[in-house]
């Protein structure tokens, strides 16, 4: 069965997820040059970085995104943080820097809406400013550790039903506000639920699960992508071109 939206993951073309992490002041960038011309890239700073405080928006990060956007459609997370103040400051800083960029046609920012139901009204100004700068803006909703409120995190592996319903209502709400959604760190039960329910408004997702769940880190691309295919099961990724047409609709 063909998925209605792709699942980006590490180095498995055509939907490749790359990491840009800041650890103890040092930047670690995944460097991977795709072999297919129709590859779509997604860049994320990762859950760990966001949880421990986030990474500031820097020219270096924008250059990294630009490197891929020069050749490929590139989705990228605006560096997020579980700390609301830092999260909002980062977004505003990003908007300031992005307003000086030239061609942004290939760049698709993802603004992660932590604490969605509590904060969405206050995020609207940021989202509208982003819409003035970029042709497509996605709302990011967490799908692994759901940040539903500053005091509550729903672990989707432990509470799949609650997690699925939370993701569903956040997606529906975002769509009703004119935004499409990227589900960050989607779990297989949530993917199954969203596909089964045929929920409209999700355009993409990502996972790094094939290397988790007790498996040792899979260093080799071929091995990782084989395990990812197993993880997908009966699902097939959509074709990039068809998918892009739907995203821009």
């Amino acid at each position, binding site marked *: 069965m063909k998925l209605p939206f792709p699942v980006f993951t590490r180095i498995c073309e055509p939907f490749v997820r790359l990491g840009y992490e800041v650890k103890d002041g040092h930047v670690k960038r995944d460097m991977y040059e795709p072999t297919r011309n129709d590859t779509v890239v997604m860049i994320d700073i990762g859950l760990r970085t966001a949880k421990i405080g986030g990474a500031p928006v820097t020219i270096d990060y924008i250059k990294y995104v630009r490197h891929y956007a020069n050749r490929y459609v590139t989705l990228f997370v605006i560096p997020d943080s579980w700390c609301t103040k830092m999260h909002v400051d980062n977004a505003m800083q990003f908007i300031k820097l992005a307003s000086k960029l030239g061609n942004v046609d290939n760049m698709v920012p993802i603004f992660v809406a932590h604490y969605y139901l509590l904060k969405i009204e206050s995020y609207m100004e940021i989202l509208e400013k982003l819409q003035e700068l970029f042709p497509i803006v996605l709302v990011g909703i967490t799908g692994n550790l759901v940040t539903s409120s500053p005091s*509550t995190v729903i672990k989707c592996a432990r509470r799949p*039903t*609650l997690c699925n*319903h*939370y993701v569903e*209502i956040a997606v*529906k709400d975002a769509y009703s506000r004119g935004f499409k959604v990227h589900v960050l760190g989607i779990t297989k039960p949530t993917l199954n639920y969203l596909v089964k329910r045929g929920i409209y408004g999700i355009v993409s997702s990502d996972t790094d699960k094939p290397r988790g769940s007790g498996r040792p880190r899979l260093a080799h691309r071929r091995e990782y992508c084989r395990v990812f295919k197993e993880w997908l099961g009966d699902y097939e990724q959509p074709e990039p071109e068809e998918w892009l047409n739907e995203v821009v609709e």
Partner: protein
Amino acid sequence: MNIAEYLKVLTKLYKDGCVETSEFQEMMVNKDVETALAVLGDVEITVRDGNECVALNEKAREVIEELTRGKT
């Protein structure tokens, strides 16, 4: 929130036994259901009269019964 408030939030779910998906999602939007469930238990999908609905799981019901013993 304290325990009494968590219980208040989950009362409808507890008393009705099972609510429709859309109703449950409405509750999540309007009330802090996910926070209460994070403390007291979880929900599960079940079937009533042939229709899929959302109910508190057994653990959540046990916790609520324990907390409300002698108070209801």
